[in-house]
């Protein structure tokens, strides 16, 4: 291989979860994936050797060809903060120059063994989110707001970025910030598995925010969103658990066990938490707008995955444009780290060609055991699948390269007709095996989006929520007897994808971004008059999204999905597994979750 080439490998996950890797060759994005998709352990934080191997294979290069490795964290700074409870400063950074960062990194030894020729770099964690967000955004320059649970020693940062300039203007130090608060209350509500915050976001619209004042006893804040929890809490399991009684005391409710019924009080706590979160983010956004004078905002970090807040922030027009990157969180931190080095190498404006974030591998060989169940489709393939969907069939859709990020963007998805009464419950209980209150997201033809929702702006990667147009809403009663009754109420023609507050987490499908899905949706519209389908990730509760054709087939056999599209072939479900066999298969993921 030509030795003058730049081969940059970004590695994320040193903070212990969502390990991932991304490969750039001469500034071209070749591949990126998360380790969990390979090891089948959700949020896997182990050294991402499988994700690295896949990226190198897709780039057609050997480990010795990698010229630079960029880690998405500074482990020595994290270590010093954890030991001293003092944020990074000139002294710790001087130590960072004297001591090698690798002294504190459990990832670095396997990386050095695997990639002996490479030069190693360590990036501030938040800056990897900023770079990942900015270089995939449509902006030439922008302010940024990064909020997450914990970078090395800080939880929020803001500044300005353009092609050659990256100014980190201000930060909120310590980990007990807004992100940790969301995690703590999520745990208080009985959702203990890592990354469950989105469940609380989904629960919030069912309640009223009557616990805001009580929860406010737990933190201090100011008019700029300078947020901090009262009392020290660390991002460690025992420290988080020890803090839960404080929430119980503030709310007057016991800490909920996940087996306890989710009654109205807890739902109102979820609603209050989301309200506080939105208020704080809006305060931060107004402060940043005034401080920087910038017209556009890149909203990034793990907390930016709260698409309800992102959608409201975009609609509020505090900034002319808001971009919430699908890789602005930890799953894209390796890509962000690689982009940081690339921007320094180029020193000028550039945008990365991200291929719609379909950056993983193809599904590979179809298992031989699937052959007897193949359906011989006569005529137009997409039209046939669309007709099956219109008849109420649930279809798993596995085509092309796998998505990067937490959401299925139509390459490893389960699709269904959003008009079918009871489809949300059917999918939740018989296919996904998960809590029934969580809404599904709609795929919608971009050109028809404004006829259904109150936005004409794109949401190509499911980053934003929008509201169903009033003319398409069915009025709801003031009171419901139960959560189930409220969930099942037909509040619109497409009730399965519209939340109780008429919001929907939309993914707009454009022909140029996703021609396959555009053809399918167009055919579905021809059959039904509705340019919308349910899209949910192809997995079951506790399981990472399927990656390969073999995993897709196995998941298909163990769920009540009717049809499976594997690249250009269609299969029907043999429905041979007993309920007990399915539950046994399912439980392995529950144990890993």
């Amino acid at each position, binding site marked *: 291989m030509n030795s003058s080439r730049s081969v940059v490998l970004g590695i994320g996950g040193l903070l212990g979860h969502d390990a991932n890797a991304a490969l750039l060759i001469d500034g071209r994005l070749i591949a990126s994936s998360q380790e969990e998709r390979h090891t089948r352990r959700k949020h896997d934080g182990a050294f991402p050797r499988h994700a690295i191997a896949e990226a190198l294979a897709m780039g057609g290069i050997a480990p010795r060809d990698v010229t630079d490795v960029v880690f998405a964290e500074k482990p020595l700074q994290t270590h010093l903060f954890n030991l001293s409870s003092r944020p990074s400063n000139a002294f710790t950074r001087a130590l960072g120059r004297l001591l090698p960062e690798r002294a504190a990194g459990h990832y670095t030894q396997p990386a050095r063994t695997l990639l002996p020729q490479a030069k190693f770099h360590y990036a*501030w964690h938040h*800056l990897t989110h900023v770079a990942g967000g900015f270089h995939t955004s449509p902006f030439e320059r922008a302010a940024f707001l990064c909020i997450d649970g914990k970078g090395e020693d800080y939880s929020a940062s803001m*500044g300005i970025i353009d092609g050659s300039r990256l100014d980190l203007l201000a930060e909120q130090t310590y980990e007990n910030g807004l992100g940790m608060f969301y995690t703590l209350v999520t745990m208080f509500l009985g959702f203990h598995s890592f990354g469950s915050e989105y469940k609380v976001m989904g629960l919030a619209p069912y309640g009223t925010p009557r616990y805001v004042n009580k929860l406010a006893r737990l933190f201090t804040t100011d008019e700029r969103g300078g947020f901090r929890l009262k009392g020290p809490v660390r991002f460690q399991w025992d420290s988080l658990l020890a803090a839960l009684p404080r929430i119980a005391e503030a709310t007057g409710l016991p800490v909920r066990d996940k087996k306890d019924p989710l009654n109205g009080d807890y739902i109102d706590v979820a609603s209050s938490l989301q309200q506080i979160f939105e208020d704080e983010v809006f305060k931060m956004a107004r402060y940043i707008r005034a401080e920087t004078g910038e017209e556009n905002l890149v909203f990034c970090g793990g907390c930016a995955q709260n698409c309800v807040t992102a959608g409201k922030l975009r609609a509020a027009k505090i900034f002319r444009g808001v971009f919430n990157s699908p890789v602005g969180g930890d799953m894209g931190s390796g890509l962000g780290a690689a982009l940081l080095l690339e921007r320094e190498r180029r020193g000028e404006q550039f945008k990365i060609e991200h291929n719609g974030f379909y950056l993983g591998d193809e599904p590979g060989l179809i298992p031989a055991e699937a052959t007897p169940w193949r359906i011989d489709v006569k005529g137009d393939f997409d039209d046939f699948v669309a007709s099956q969907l219109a008849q109420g069939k649930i279809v798993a859709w596995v085509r092309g390269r796998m998505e990067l990020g937490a959401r299925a963007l139509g390459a490893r998805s389960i699709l269904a007709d959003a008009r079918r009464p009871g489809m949300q419950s059917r999918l939740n209980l018989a296919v996904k095996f998960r809590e029934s209150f969580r809404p599904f997201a709609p795929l919608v033809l971009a050109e028809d989006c404004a006829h259904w929702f109150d936005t004409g702006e794109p949401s190509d990667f499911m980053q934003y929520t929008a509201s169903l147009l009033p003319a398409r809403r069915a009025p709801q009663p003031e009171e419901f007897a139960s959560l189930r009754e409220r969930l099942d109420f037909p509040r619109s023609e497409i009730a399965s994808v519209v939340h109780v507050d008429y919001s929907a987490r939309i993914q707009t499908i454009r022909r140029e971004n996703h021609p396959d899905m555009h053809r399918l949706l167009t055919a579905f519209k021809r059959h039904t008059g509705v340019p919308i389908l349910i899209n949910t990730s192809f997995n079951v509760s506790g399981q990472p999204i399927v990656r390969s054709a073999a995993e897709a087939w196995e998941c298909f056999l163990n769920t009540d999905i009717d049809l499976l599209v594997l690249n250009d072939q269609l299969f029907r479900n043999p429905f041979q597994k007993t309920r007990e066999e399915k539950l046994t298969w399912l439980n392995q993921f529950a144990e890993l979750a």
Partner: protein
Amino acid sequence: MAQSIRRIGLKVLVALLRFFTPPAPAGWRRSTRPTHLRGS
């Protein structure tokens, strides 16, 4: 022996860090982090 010295050195380092660095107040504060990757 080398490990003990390293452990004691780390404790001294942390004590110095705590002594010379006051806890940071809540709210936004000006960032002094260098943003360039090289030299990290």
